[in-house]
């Protein structure tokens, strides 16, 4: 370990960003499995351990990264404080996505069935669209691109508006509770996940004061 001091190796904020990208990959994995269990009838028990294990890993890495950011500020001084605050926000958002994926799994384990429904194909397409956002977000975390960021922002906002519309539709639906409640909850989680994904990019790329309130998500939302 002492010799490692003299060797070159990953350090600094780039190292933190690259580990955060890994966390985001884990969050995507958890999201994919949880939505698969809910939307396709895959046994929730079969994916339970994987999702919870992945979420635990995300939480563990989040703690490590926060420590590394404290070390960064202690060693390098306050020069990078803006980036560090942005990264702390970003890490929190990835943690939340992991927790929200677990919430989707809880929904499936509670007996919610969204498989083999008339709109299953649309739900699966929507699931795939959101899953693809994860890799776009990961790209934008490491390579700043204003045009792509703007396009992503627009699509995320459209997706969030669509989720909200569905939620409101279910609230006013005449269908029985056991049909609409799981769906309303599911779309609420999707809306939060999309908002967190957009929030991650903004935390990584925009100054703290320029981040849109709509992109900021809170645990009690």
């Amino acid at each position, binding site marked *: *370990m*002492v010799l*490692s*001091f*003299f060797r070159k*190796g*990953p*350090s*600094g904020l780039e190292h933190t960003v690259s580990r955060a990208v890994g966390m985001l990959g884990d969050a995507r994995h958890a999201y994919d499995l949880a939505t698969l269990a809910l939307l396709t009838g895959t046994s929730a028990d079969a994916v339970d351990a994987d999702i919870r294990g992945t979420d635990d890993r995300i939480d563990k890495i989040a703690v*490590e990264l*926060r*420590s*590394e950011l*404290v*070390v*960064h*500020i*202690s*060693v*390098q001084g306050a*020069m990078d404080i803006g980036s560090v605050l942005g990264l702390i926000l970003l890490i929190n958002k990835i943690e939340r996505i992991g927790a929200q994926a677990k919430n989707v799994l809880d929904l499936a384990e509670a007996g919610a069935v969204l498989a083999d429904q008339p709109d299953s194909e649309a739900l699966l397409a929507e699931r795939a669209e959101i899953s693809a956002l994860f890799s776009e977000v990961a790209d934008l975390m490491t390579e700043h691109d204003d045009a792509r960021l703007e396009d992503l922002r627009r699509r995320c906002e459209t997706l969030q508006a669509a989720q909200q519309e569905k939620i409101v539709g279910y609230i006013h639906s005449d269908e029985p509770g056991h049909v609409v409640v799981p769906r309303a909850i599911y779309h609420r989680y999707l809306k939060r996940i999309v908002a967190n994904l957009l929030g991650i990019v903004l935390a990584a790329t925009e100054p703290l004061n320029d981040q849109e309130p709509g992109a900021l998500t809170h645990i009690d939302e």
Partner: protein
Amino acid sequence: MTTDDTERSMPTLIRAFLVGGFIYLFLVGVSSLEAGIKLLGQDTQEQLFSNVSNPVAGLCIGILGTVLVQSSSASTSVIVGLVAAGAVDIDTAVPMIMGANIGTTVTNTLVSLGSARRSDEFRRAFATATVHDFFNVFAVAILLPIELLTGVLSNAAGWLTEHLVGASGSDWKSPLKEWVKLPVGWIEDLWSWIGLSGNPLGAVIVATGLVLIIVSLGLITKNMRKLIADRVERSMNSVLSRGGGSVAMLLGVVITMLVQSSSITTSILIPMSAAGVITIRNAYPVTLGANVGTTITALLAALASSSPDALTVALVHTLFNVAGILILYVPRFIRGAPVYCAEWLARLAALRPLWAVAYVMGAFIVVPLVGFGIAR
């Protein structure tokens, strides 16, 4: 691009050359100090340094001097310069060196006061800062009486010096001394040229040496910190992930040797401790490593002189810190003592931050001043 950006983006090679230049300047400073004191004359030297012949007075002066310049590297280098010039003997210098070890702990304690308003953070930060204080005070409390009774540290250092450069008392040709001879001559010529001679000339050359030592050490620390910041960050993360112990201690030695300042190493630990990412038990060995690492500066200063006694005093500094670790850290039954004391004091300070201020003022200013006043 701001000034800070420019400083950050300075090529590594240029910065490394700068550090080399500042080390040279530091050696010139130590050598000037030695030359200036020699010019002061025997009577003036006796008048100036007779007050520190009492070990307690020497200890207190070591503390006060280090608190004043906020750098044990600077104060121990000055002490080495005084010994090299023959103004202070080894027996007198040893308590001063030990005092410098205590005085240097004030910096991270002052850093910890920054979180005084947040009780939990402050308790952790203050404990991590004062564990350094308690270790050094305990080490002095144990080793100073032993040294005064037996001379074990100075004898061991003398034995080492003899094996390294030859018999104590005779001159040895330090290559570094030869390298700095020319600029020291320029400094003497410059002040003589404006008409100074005798004691005033000696005093001005001593002052020039002091300024050079303090400024160059500050610049070495600043630039080395930037040069190795990424490596320090990575190794601190290793300490966090793999715990403390001897490896953390070795990292403390390496980091401090490179930045030439134990205050930098120990102060880095304070915000980490306040945030709760490092425990006092993991930070403690890093602090002890910093104690040993900082002795490299006095050794370097000794190489700028041709006096074996100067090297002996510098080696006493190293042996004192190593002995402190062997006595207070290696035996498991006593290892926790400085930690318990620091945690106890931190609990008090967290309840009433005024205690912390009183402690800093008392331990680093009032007690040494009173001690010096009584013992001189």
